[in-house]
């Protein structure tokens, strides 16, 4: 029978191997489930997890999907390290896009290099403002940020619906619920002519490196980790958990808001009711797949981006339903949490005498 033994020290091998094991288990179980449902399970898994990497023409799409995931997950991971559970990045992502779009609509008749930076700034501030509400409620009233941040997501979604159907509706848009298209000065520059690769992709990598430096090399990152691991020791060392709660929620909100603005000013080019794509929720999986390590998150973002890109491929090749993408992502989170026990426990088969 299976025997579980607590390790004396957490296994550093398993710390890095368990996300890979989780990915492999997700592929295996996904294959079994879809075969049982009557699909071609083998090809489904191949198209979702391998084809996006094997076909170079898919790579730009991979980067476009990975960039917002990585950006949001970086902010979330910093909070998770401090035991601040911001589950509402999706709402902050939407609010960032709304705030940036507000700037875009206000500057519709203008031109200038400063418009896009102003939109980005508004995006950051919009996300921060939305995250400030859970921060305030937790610090002042000890309200769980898990509930407040999650619920605020739905408020943000309704706010978006109202704006695109009401005051921000494109006057020349044949009554479609959407804003005007952004002007060239309001759109993220494309890096390679004719491709989708926009400025957000290299920026996500730069932010990952900065986040890594902050977490590993500064007392600010140290404060975040101490507050998460040992709150009493943090107080003893003179670190304020209230400050850390504020800072991590604002950082998470700001990055999610920036990602939202980049999405609006990049692939979308306007706001529509289809804007909330669930990146804010998927980023939670990215953060854990990357082991809450900023550099690991880049890897995690690429894997989750593959499930989006591959999910679309599998829709045409194996006629998989669109919901399959979400199922694979959920399965991956489940496997990640399950394999995490390998870090602290050793399992072995033991034949027990009767």
């Amino acid at each position, binding site marked *: 029978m299976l025997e579980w033994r607590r390790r004396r*020290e957490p296994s550093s091998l398993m710390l890095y191997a368990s996300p890979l094991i989780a990915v492999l288990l997700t592929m295996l179980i996904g294959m079994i489930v879809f075969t049982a449902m009557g699909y071609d399970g083998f090809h489904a898994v191949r198209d979702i997890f391998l084809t996006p990497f094997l076909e170079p023409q898919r790579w730009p799409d991979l980067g476009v999907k990975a960039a917002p995931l990585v950006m949001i997950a970086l902010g979330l991971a910093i909070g998770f390290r401090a035991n601040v559970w911001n589950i509402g990045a999706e709402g902050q992502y939407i609010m960032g896009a709304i705030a940036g779009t507000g700037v875009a609509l206000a500057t519709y008749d203008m031109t200038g290099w400063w418009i896009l930076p102003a939109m980005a700034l508004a995006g950051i501030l919009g996300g921060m403002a939305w995250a400030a509400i859970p921060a305030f409620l937790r610090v002042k009233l000890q309200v769980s940020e898990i509930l407040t941040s999650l619920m605020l997501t739905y408020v943000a979604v309704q706010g978006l619906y109202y704006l695109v159907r009401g005051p921000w509706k494109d006057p020349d848009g044949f009554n479609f619920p959407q804003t005007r298209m952004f002007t060239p000065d309001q759109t993220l520059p494309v890096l390679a002519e004719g491709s989708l690769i926009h400025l957000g992709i290299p920026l996500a990598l730069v932010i990952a490196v900065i986040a890594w430096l902050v977490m590993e090399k500064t*007392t*600010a990152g*140290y404060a975040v*980790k101490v507050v998460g691991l040992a709150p009493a*020791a943090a107080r*003893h060392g*003179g670190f*304020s958990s209230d400050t850390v709660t504020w800072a991590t929620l604002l950082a998470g909100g700001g990055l999610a808001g920036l990602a939202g603005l980049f999405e609006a000013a990049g692939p979308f080019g306007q706001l529509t009711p289809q804007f909330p794509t669930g990146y804010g929720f998927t980023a939670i999986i990215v953060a854990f797949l990357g082991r809450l390590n900023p550099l690991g998150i880049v890897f995690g973002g690429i894997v989750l981006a593959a499930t989006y890109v591959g999910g679309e491929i599998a829709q045409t090749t194996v006629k998989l339903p669109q919901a399959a993408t979400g199922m694979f992502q959920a399965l991956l989170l489940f496997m990640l949490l399950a394999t995490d026990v390998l870090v602290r426990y050793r399992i072995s088969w033991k034949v027990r005498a009767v």
Partner: protein
Amino acid sequence: MNQPREQEVPPRLALAHISKSFPGVKANEDISLSVRPGEIHALLGENGAGKSTLVKIIYGVQHADEGTISWDGETVSIPSPKAARRLGIGMVFQHFSLFDAMTVIENIALGLDEAVDREVLKARVAAILDSYSLPLDPERAVHTLSVGERQRIEIVRCLLQKPKLLIMDEPTSVLTPQEVERLFETLRQIASEGCAILYISHKLHEIKALCEAATILRGGRVVATCDPKLESTKRMAELMIGAELRQIEHKPGAGAGAVRLSVQDLSLAGEPPFGTDLEAVSFDARAGEILGIAGVAGNGQSELLTALSGERLASSPDAILLDGRPIGLHGAGQRRAAGLACVPEERNGHAAVPDFSLADNSILTARHRLPLAPLGFVARGDVLRFAQSVIQRFDVRTTGPGALARSLSGGNLQKFIMGREIGQQPAVLVVSQPTWGVDAGAAAAIRQELVDLAAKGSAVVVISQDLDELLELADRLCVLNEGRLSAPRAIASLGIDEIGLMMGGVHGAGESTGATHA
């Protein structure tokens, strides 16, 4: 004991060649010992010497890899604590397993292996309390009892089973001197009725007072068997730690310097749910002196430490003066920068982060006074050098600055934490339970460092339950009882009985509500 000894009577408990290994450690190696009926036998050794493992084997919690156990002359196997109790083995653990919200009699009923009618149980408990003259009210709720009274519940639990062998694990670590004396009387009476007692401790004078045989363990092996009444305390200590004991050297001319830390009418609400309010605590600590604060745990010790460390703030800046500057409203970091260092009692999770390396743990409290993180950027090289210097100077046994704090034994981690604070040359060091759970060799080293720090002109405040430690270290002593602090008295003018009475709550004429002059 006074009863006649007959050679033919087999020993109550005899262990032969017991060995037990855990991955990476030989906890017990070829241990043999025997205890006669009516004998009080000491099991002596430092933390990690293998006492706990051996006792767990006897009580059926763990199983020996090799060796045999015989009971009244017959070889037995003890697969579980229940089997141990059936044989007649009772054990009083160092940490009690009692439900605070329930009464004494309810707790006793819960601890029994079989259901006993409440009235019958009451009568049996009353009989035991009476025959051993133990003061204990069976109807009182446990949370209202002192530690000594709680221990009596555990003893009564054991006595109900009419034990033939009673194991006492470090029973005096939290008792006042009066409670210790009372416990010893009870134990002597139990032994005189033919029950063998295995008494685990590292307090040598207690063993001299109580026991008639001692087995000394070191590194999992028996290093000596002796009669503690004949052997000198120093010799037993040296056998226990395997080296010559360092005597603490007090440098002459210490004390009587300027006031470095002055606390005036410091009041603070207790930490929920069972905290004790500090009520108008006042004292001065002077350059060059060690001020001892005695008292049984739970009388406001942790509140006093967090109030001094800055983890909780005073209500006015003048409540705490450091070298004359008001710091009552300064946070923990500012107080450290100003020169007030504190070491709380709890090492893991309070004084140190268990999942951090020793190097990272030095950043926690040393970054204010040492340039470990200039402009917020951690200077990795300087951090490693500082951690390494603490490890060397304080003889911390570890693999290096990269070792996780949780991988160190309690004593080694405490040496590291003390070294981290002393290495910053604080103006005032406040330390709670500096040698709690620390082996004798490390404890002596830590105490010497405290004395040396005071000799260099710092003021040292030691909050401790261990009276021997305070008597050895302190120049002046006061007692914290129910959140109130007595006026300090010079150690030389105090008798141990007097301190015991102060600890137990009987305030003498020395009780203070504001006066701080010794």
